[in-house]
């Protein structure tokens, strides 16, 4: 036990003191927040750039349909021919020229209208223009059918269905997605942790092998103790790094918000937009309340407890496989062939999670993958935000998945430690899968 502690301590200190580890710990949050700020800033600049469209309208069917909106404004040309209009549009550097010819009927006008631009036009602008034409066309056709303009504007509706559960609790559309995103975030965290720190464990094993210190150490401690100490020490270093990332990241984010005032305005815009869309049904306040209520209703305690369970088991399973791979090879370039099969279930879990669990959290695929031990840590966590029992994950599924995970954990760690024990003393050529299988019998 004492020796295990010594190994954990050494691994931890060796990792934490490592220069690239320190640099990554402090640089990553800065880079991440910096990227976020940069993207927000660039988006803002992009949005602020208004496109100006010149409009040459010779028809009587359009008059003031083209309104200046947030992103686009219109300059009206009068009494000049098309060629002159084109020239001046180009000279003034406008985004394009919309030409509406004079024709006898609207169908003809619409058919002969053109949008001229120097470069290929911005798609959002085009769709905005198309919308105007479509509305005008529909209005005209309805008029032909006897519906007046006034009636037409009265016909405009906006509707989103109200949803509720059977026991009457009001639901908000999209809450399932939000829940899945929260679960997905946890699952993604596990995957990232496994890939980053599993790789660290592997590299640390390879380092001991290539520096030939391994035999000196295992003449004092059992190989299993060394493997376990290595995994635990590296994980503690990883957890330290993660905590620093989260703390530093949120601090930087706050600073960025405070000084740059970028996200705030963006958020406000977003809220206004949402408000303007949702005017029909419950007021924004109510919607937000329901959202807040739903978020509070997510079983956070359960979610976090199970996150810890799945995280520990899942991480230990994968990192012992990484340790075994590190033991089997002599250098990092030889690891690719062996890493692929362990990345595969992780990727599968994430993709299945995002595609299948999002659309149907309790469908057969989601259930299957949340029970299969190599994917369950990720997929089950994506399902868990909807709770356990009625309306959520059935208890038996949860228990089966954890039981299977524990059995797999014991089995994999046992196999990995056998491979590790033999592999660390093998130098020279890269082993094949068959040879590794034979090691199990040594």
């Amino acid at each position, binding site marked *: 036990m004492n020796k295990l502690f010594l190994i954990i301590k050494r691994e931890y200190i*060796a990792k934490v003191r*490592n220069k690239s580890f320190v640099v990554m710990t402090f640089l990553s949050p800065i880079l991440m927040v910096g990227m976020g700020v940069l993207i927000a800033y660039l988006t803002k600049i992009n949005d602020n750039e208004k496109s100006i469209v010149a409009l040459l309208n010779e028809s009587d069917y359009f008059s003031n349909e083209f309104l200046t909106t947030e992103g686009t404004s219109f300059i009206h040309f009068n009494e000049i021919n098309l060629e002159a209009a084109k020239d001046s549009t180009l000279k003034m550097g406008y985004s394009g020229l919309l030409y509406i010819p004079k024709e006898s009927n609207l169908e003809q006008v619409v058919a002969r209208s053109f949008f001229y631009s120097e470069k290929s036009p911005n798609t959002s602008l085009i769709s905005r223009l198309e919308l105007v034409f479509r509305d005008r066309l529909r209005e005209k056709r309805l008029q032909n059918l006897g519906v007046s303009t006034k009636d037409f504007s009265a016909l405009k509706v906006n509707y989103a269905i109200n949803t509720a559960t059977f026991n009457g609790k009001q639901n908000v559309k999209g809450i399932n997605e939000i829940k899945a995103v929260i679960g997905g975030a946890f699952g993604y965290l596990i995957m990232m942790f496994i890939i980053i720190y599993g790789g660290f464990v592997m590299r640390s094993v390879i380092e001991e092998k290539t*520096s030939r210190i391994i*035999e*000196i150490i295992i*003449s*004092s401690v059992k190989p299993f103790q060394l493997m376990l100490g290595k995994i635990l020490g590296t994980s503690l270093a990883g957890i330290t790094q993660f905590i620093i990332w989260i703390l530093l990241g949120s601090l930087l984010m706050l600073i960025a918000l405070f000084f740059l005032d970028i996200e705030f305005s963006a958020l406000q815009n977003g809220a206004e937009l949402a408000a303007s869309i949702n005017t029909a049904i419950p007021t924004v306040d109510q919607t937000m309340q329901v959202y807040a209520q739903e978020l509070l209703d997510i079983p956070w305690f359960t979610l976090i407890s199970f996150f810890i369970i799945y995280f520990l088991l899942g991480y230990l399973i994968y990192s012992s496989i990484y340790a075994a791979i590190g033991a089997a090879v002599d250098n990092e370039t030889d690891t690719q062939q062996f890493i692929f099969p362990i990345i595969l279930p992780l990727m599968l879990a994430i993709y299945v999670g995002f595609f299948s669990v999002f659309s149907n959290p309790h469908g057969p695929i989601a259930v299957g993958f949340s029970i299969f031990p190599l994917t369950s840590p990720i997929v089950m966590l994506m399902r868990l935000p909807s709770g356990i029992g009625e309306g959520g994950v059935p208890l038996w599924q949860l228990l089966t998945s954890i039981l299977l995970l524990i059995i797999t954990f014991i089995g994999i760690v046992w196999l990995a430690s056998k491979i590790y024990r033999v592999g660390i003393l093998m130098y020279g050529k890269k082993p094949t899968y068959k040879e590794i299988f034979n090691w199990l019998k*040594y």
Partner: protein
Amino acid sequence: MRYIDFVNINFLFHSNFFPILEFILRVGFFFSANSLKLLTKNHKKEYGLKQLYIFGKKAYMNNILVTKEVTKHFGKHIALHNVSLEIPRNSIYGLLGPNGAGKTTLIRIINQITHPDKGSVFFDGEKLKAEHIAQIGYLPEERGLYKSMKVGEQALYLAQLKGLSKSEAKKRLKFWFERLEIGNWWDKKIQELSKGMAQKIQFIVTVLHEPKLLIFDEPFSGFDPINANIIKDEILKLKEKGTSIIFSTHRMESVEELCEYIALIHKSQKILDGKLSDIKKAYKNNVYKIGMQVLNGEALLGELSGKFKISASDYNTVEQQLDFTMQFPGKETGEILSYLASKGNINSFVETIPSANEIFIKTVQSKNNNE
């Protein structure tokens, strides 16, 4: 199905099943031995079990390490086949053999890095167990240190892994660093040191916990002659202090200098073992080196080579000195010597004792030829 069986069996080996079984047997043996003692106390004769016990104990008392029919397979490859060795206390024991003979496997078994498939190992009179690790120091052939860790820190770490307390380890390290004149390396990193320097540190780490048994696998590889001598002297000093040493190598000159006992392992089997001087006696075959002053050396040489096996002959016509090596037909030398003496003036007559290297090559070759 075979695979499943093997899983179960191996699980037994790694679970507590065998230690528990052993414990039960030991307790049983203890009680039965004691009751036997009680039974036989009134009788003048002490027989059977007790005598066996005493005999066994004696064998274990004189030897620091005993291996009994140790066998180890790696898949289909047999690494060791029924290797039995007795390594006497307070001696330097040479474990010799060509590359791949199984020396390292045997050493790893002694260090409990791997476990034998069959056979047993006794250390200091007891069956080898985990606690013995602290009594053994091992300098492997494939050795190195953490590249990016400070010398002092990793020496301290390795010493603590052997069970020394931090303060004790520090004290002893200071002593050894002074002794080998590397005191100022404490804060250096291994990557700043040369290979020979790193070897010194590995040597210190191996001996620091003052083990009863030291195992050196090719200890001089990587040392320059001066440092090799320093280490050789240290090994001899340790032996004087009462440490038993196993010395594995295929470099024979160092065997000649250091070892009192040797065992030769070839193709996973022990083919020769015992006291080096006894082995040499057994291997000498009446070969003598003769130097004499003679008028017509070439004629004499021609005459002799008709009857005997002559090698390495040289006649200096100016000095009229003839030197040659000759194998005598038997142990009796008098007759031939007096014949030689009648031909000239014998000025040297020395029996050639085979070197360890010759014994090594001869044994291995004869073994190969027999197969």
